[in-house]
């Protein structure tokens, strides 16, 4: 299985689009004024948006959008998204951690932003690609 790392760029526009599509309109994901008032450095990505991007890497590695059997993460560090054209970037990596049963592969996942891990205990079980 080719597990080459994936990178995803995240801009403010992505957060607005995700807010609309997911129904999560928490202002910490679109208002600097609100985000800084509650002690954040600025607008942060939805944890579930980061999880969705890591999920894209997982389905990509698995070779099929319906091959995920189990998927879980812990959110440990916010992904701050500056209000400019570049936004920020997360890098996603995976390592095979075993075969819980025949035909299944467990992946340990890492997602980093500026070199720092933003998830812990990130794991997926996928159907082993043919």
């Amino acid at each position, binding site marked *: 299985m080719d597990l080459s790392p994936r990178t995803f760029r995240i801009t403010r526009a992505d957060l607005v689009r995700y807010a609309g599509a*997911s129904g999560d309109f928490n202002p910490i994901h679109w208002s600097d004024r609100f985000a800084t008032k509650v002690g954040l450095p600025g607008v942060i990505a939805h944890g579930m948006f980061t999880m969705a991007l890591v*999920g*894209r890497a997982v*389905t990509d590695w698995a070779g*099929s959008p*319906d091959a995920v059997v189990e998927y879980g993460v812990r959110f440990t560090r916010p992904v701050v998204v500056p209000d400019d054209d570049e936004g920020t970037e997360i890098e996603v990596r995976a390592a095979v951690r075993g075969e819980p049963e025949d035909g299944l592969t467990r992946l340990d996942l890492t997602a980093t932003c500026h070199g720092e891990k933003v998830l812990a205990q990130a794991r997926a079980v996928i159907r082993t690609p043919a």
Partner: protein
Amino acid sequence: MSLDPSFVGRSYPPTPPYQVGREKIREFATAIGAVEPAYHDPDAARALGHADVVAPPTYPFTITMAASRQIVEDPELGIDYSRVVHGDQRFRYTRPVVAGDELVCVNTVEEIVNRAGNSFMTTRTEVNTTAGEPVVTVWTKLVVRGEG
């Protein structure tokens, strides 16, 4: 403020059916930049053996987040939502969510831990079709940060 541990094990009434729309799945897939044909094209999804377009793995959270308001807005439990942070998230799939599904959520409080002024609550949501077919089980851990 701490959460009452006697809520552990409590289940809530099934939520009203949620109708999964094809355009909603496409919108969600587009929002996360997912271009795989099975998310957008019914024929591509049928080629994989599904009745209609398939939802990306984290899509069910949009349904369970709304459904979990039963718990987070339960006045007896008394969660201050302005202090809530998403801690952990986990999905176990029987099959992917597919356009046309009519889904019902049953929420259960699985764990409550009060530690160092913060509260940690794990909920489990069984997402089934209206016909009772299991689709996905969703665990969410919320952290309610203590005051000051």
